[in-house]
């Protein structure tokens, strides 16, 4: 069951000891469509992580409201209502393997579901399935999470969230710190989960290759505000804007811009992938 997320004029800040921080989200208005795969990009400190945290009530709005499916998060939301939202919105933090704590992989995966009232036996069943879906085998269930490799730990951490059977998957740089192969495996896993279940997926990333390869929409943030929310191709079309927001571009685009600057020859379209580049160079007869 996919779900839509709607932000209506949301502003939020943090409580830091006795004082409140400056606003981390500033009158945010955005509608994330059900079943979409949205990448959230922006310079460090733009508020991307805050946007994610607002979606499952970890960051309460000071003003405005957030609607997740049929549940609403308002400034005065009580704790118990937030819990049901957290079941719907599965959130995977950056370096999620650093949150593993249980004696066995099985126990760790069951932690989430059991917190939401799932029985132990049922949770174990779910654990068995989810472990395979993240590309590992069932014999890993009896091992200690601390004995696994970095990549395996990350998959177990993600499995722990998938086991909660959320309707929306929200991830903060899921590929961070992994080697290129490991990154691809995790991103492919998320993509297949998204496709097989039509699950609304929201992803914070700095890696523009991932944006171009996996996402269909992009949200660009700057200084706590959403400055653009559009399809991937449209977002990378305006280079000046991207520079203003200090954003990186995919390798192919970078190559294109470099080429155009050096040679003065302009390619017929905005190239975001190597295939695009090949097409473009062939079209202008340079290859």
């Amino acid at each position: 069951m996919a779900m839509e997320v709607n932000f209506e004029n949301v502003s939020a800040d943090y409580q830091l000891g006795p004082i409140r921080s400056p606003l981390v989200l500033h009158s945010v208005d955005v509608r994330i469509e059900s079943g979409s795969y949205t990448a959230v990009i922006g310079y460090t400190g733009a508020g991307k992580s805050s946007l994610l945290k607002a979606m499952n009530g970890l960051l309460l709005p000071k003003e405005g409201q957030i609607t997740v499916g049929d549940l609403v998060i308002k400034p005065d939301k009580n704790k118990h209502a937030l819990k049901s939202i957290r079941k719907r919105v599965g959130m995977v933090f950056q370096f999620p393997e650093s949150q593993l704590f249980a004696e066995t992989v099985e126990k760790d995966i069951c932690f989430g579901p059991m917190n939401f009232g799932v029985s132990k036996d049922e949770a174990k069943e779910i654990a068995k399935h989810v472990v395979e879906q993240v590309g590992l085998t069932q014999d890993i269930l009896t091992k200690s999470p601390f004995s696994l490799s970095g990549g395996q730990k990350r998959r177990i951490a993600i499995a722990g969230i998938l086991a909660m059977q959320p309707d929306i998957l929200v991830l903060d740089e899921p590929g961070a710190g992994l080697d290129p192969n490991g990154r691809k495996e995790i991103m492919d896993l998320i993509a297949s989960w998204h496709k097989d279940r039509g699950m609304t997926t929201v992803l914070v990333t700095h890696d523009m290759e991932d944006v171009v390869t996996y996402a269909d929409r992009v949200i660009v943030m700057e200084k706590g505000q959403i400055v653009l929310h559009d399809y991937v191709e449209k977002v990378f079309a305006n280079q000046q804007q991207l520079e203003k927001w200090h954003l990186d571009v995919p390798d192919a685009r970078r190559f294109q811009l470099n080429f155009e600057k050096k040679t003065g020859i302009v390619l017929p379209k905005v190239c975001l992938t190597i295939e695009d580049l090949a097409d473009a160079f062939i079209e202008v007869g340079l290859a």
Partner: protein
Amino acid sequence: MPTPIIEVNNLIFRYDQRLEKETLSDISFSIDKGEWVAIVGHNGSGKSTLAQMLVGLLVPQSGRITIAGRELNDDTKWELRRRIGMVFQNPDNQFIGTTVQDDVAFCLENLNMPYDEMKTRIDEALEMVEMSAFREHDPSRLSGGQKQRVAIAGVLALKPDVLVLDEALVMLDPRSRRELLASLQQLRSTQNITIISITHDMNEAASADRILMLREGHIERCGPPQDVFQGELEWEPPFAEKLRRTLLKRNRSVPNSYMTEEEMVHWLWK
């Protein structure tokens, strides 16, 4: 023929003495002064072990490592650590000082260097990594890329011959990685420092003069990028090579050998 700055001879290492499996099996190679050598391999290929051996953190069961003409062993390692420095993967877990300049000073303090000399070296090192403006910043205000620059400055302050980067770019975002690579290339040409970079990233390896490919403790391939990136590859090749292969697949008349991005631009421009 000048002597190589690093010579590795018949290195054998086993993590677990009880097992047959050797993490490093009879590894031998040499590196010349000023070279940039990339060491690549899968997890478990032994590359991190090799890196740690080069700075004396691990001792081989047999074999020899010679740095700047001196054999590396328990007696010489402290002195040789002035000739070879290492930057680790995690930007936070190697940042010791409370500010940028304090961190760079740490290595020099360890040598009991007098204050004035320290000050000069710190200023020079920070200049080389373009972090002079940040000297009083504390690490919580720095990005990952900036912290790695400080780590590099810390090594450079010792005026070493060799800089080892142990997957030092893996935790950085793509743009920071490119920027740091560019800075390293510049450093190499101005300081004539030898660089050994342990990496998974073929774009990073493509910056090297030579690539050493490790597999299960053996050196599988060794040579310049144009030789190593030929034929079947287990990894994603660097960007320009990917483009070349794509064009090749479409039956375009691209050259049959590896080109750098610069060369690619030129070829396309004709």
